[in-house]
């Protein structure tokens, strides 16, 4: 299972947002997307998820054009893990995760015990099995994000797309969610994740895609492409790298 984006361009009306973006994502890879606010990370993700069909270029899944695939077929290949938001109506954690299994069901069918088992397994995988009967809206942000990851696992797609999943989480939960995502990647999922924190990309990702001005600014291994120059170009921040016992860290220089 691989995802291949070729010469992708997208514009909202006259306003170009993405220009000539090309990259690919293989199974087992954790690709982190970096870039300043408004650079088009979310637009890129929405194109990949099939929510914005009016793009130029092509997005291929195992060589097949995503535009030709049905919504159901897309959901079989790519699972989306949104930022936590406040849903209009609260469902139990089990029901929330069960929604991930909907693509397996025919139009009028209800989830059966097979789906419930998958949902329970997914909850166990993310360490949230004890939350099964809780109301999703009553959970903490960190717990909610774990449940949404479980929903994506229950969806049984090979690629996980996460748009800034850590932006609403505290320090500890950010690291726990990213650690879990890295584990999932090592188990064979292809992960595409955008983040505002280059340190996260440095610590967790296997590759980095940096966007600047709607174009690819850098693509490659974090230790090779994430440089002082790139951080300055993306964020306008002077920073230095330091090698510590806990790995490489990025320290911003404030004057």
């Amino acid at each position, binding site marked *: 299972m691989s995802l291949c984006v070729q010469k992708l361009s997208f514009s909202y009306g006259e306003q170009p947002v993405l220009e000539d973006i090309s990259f690919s994502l293989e199974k087992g890879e954790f690709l982190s997307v970096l870039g300043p606010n408004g650079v088009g990370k979310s637009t890129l993700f929405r194109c990949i998820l099939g929510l914005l069909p009016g793009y130029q270029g092509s997005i291929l899944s195992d060589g097949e054009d995503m535009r030709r695939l049905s919504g159901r077929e897309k959901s079989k290949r790519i699972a989306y893990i949104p930022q936590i938001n406040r*849903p*209009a*109506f609260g469902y139990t954690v089990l029901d929330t995760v069960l929604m991930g299994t*909907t693509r397996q069901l025919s139009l009028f069918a209800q989830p059966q015990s097979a789906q419930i088992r998958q949902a*329970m397994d997914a909850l166990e995988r993310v360490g949230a099995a004890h939350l099964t009967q809780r109301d999703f809206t009553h959970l903490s942000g960190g717990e909610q994000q774990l449940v949404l990851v479980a929903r994506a696992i229950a969806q049984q797609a090979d690629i996980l797309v996460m748009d800034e999943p850590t932006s609403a989480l505290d320090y500890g939960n950010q690291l726990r969610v990213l650690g879990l995502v890295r584990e999932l990647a090592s188990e064979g999922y292809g992960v595409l994740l955008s983040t505002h924190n280059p340190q996260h990309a440095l610590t967790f990702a296997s590759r980095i895609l940096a966007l600047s001005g709607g174009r690819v600014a850098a693509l490659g291994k974090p230790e090779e492409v994430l440089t002082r120059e790139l951080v300055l170009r993306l964020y306008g921040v002077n920073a230095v790298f330091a090698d510590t016992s806990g790995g490489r860290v990025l320290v911003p220089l404030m004057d």
Partner: protein
Amino acid sequence: MTERKTSMREKTPVQKTAGTRRAALCLTALSGLLAALFLISFVLGRYDVPLSQVARILVSRLVPLEKTWSPNMEAAVINIRLPRIALACMVGCCLALAGTAYQSVFQNPMAAPDILGASSGACFGAALAILLGFSRGGITGMAFVFSLVTVVLVYIIGARTRGSRVISILLAGVMVSSLFSAGTSFIKLVADPSNELPAITYWLMGSLSGARLSEVGFALIPMTIGAAPLLLLRWRINLLTLGEEEASTLGVNTGALRLTVVLCATFLTAASVAVSGMIGWVGLVIPHLSRKLVGNDCRYLLPASMLMGASFLMLVDDISRNLMTTEIPIGILTAFIGAPFFIYLMTRRGNAL
């Protein structure tokens, strides 16, 4: 080791039933309540018919029984009370179901069956029919047709605007609704104040009085057409509450599903309003009560809303026809009961909507 494995395997279904058992219990209790209210409603009325005779008369329609009742009793039960009670049941059931469906589709707990103008369209159609001197059947038909026309209009306008589809449709609903309300006001202005105007006013207040079996039959068809797909799609309707983008990444064809749900809910509303006039609040209060009782999962919420809506409207109609010597239009009563109850629900401590 084997034993432990089995207990682990069995853990899953047990945990599931803990949540679903409560919902199933609620549905059973609601069914019982509905059946009891249904029978009791036949006893209530100016002409006295004891419960035992009511039961015998109803059963005698299906199996031949020895006649222990007078012809007057049979007339009261079958010709007068049965159509009215059946209609109250059906209208309450459909308005509550439509309200629940609209709330899910628009991810808005404040959505009610008239949110897309189905009611104001029906009122305009009925007022126009009364002005043109149509028969009772003609009035019902016009109300139904105008109700559907209004919602289709709203959907077309909403689909042609830019930006968020859901908000566009809701805004279009507000505008088209007020347009038809203005039309109704204009008809009232030009209507003959000695006979047409009171007829229009009374129709707009909502009433089930003078219900006939033919109306029950008329309403049954669109109500079944509207309710069946909603019940069949009840798991998928849950996913619509996540919003368009999230639902579509989970493999749901959101555009088609939303259109189906809106059309079905509109059919239910149009059929209800056409036979009963404006009966507000049922479609807002009952879904909320049902959510409190069985949760937001449409697999249980939709049946619970239907049962509770039917019971509620039957009860209110019993009050409407028995409280005073002259009948109180049911639409006034549902507002008198519904609005304060809703305020109570909203202001109760620790009870976010």
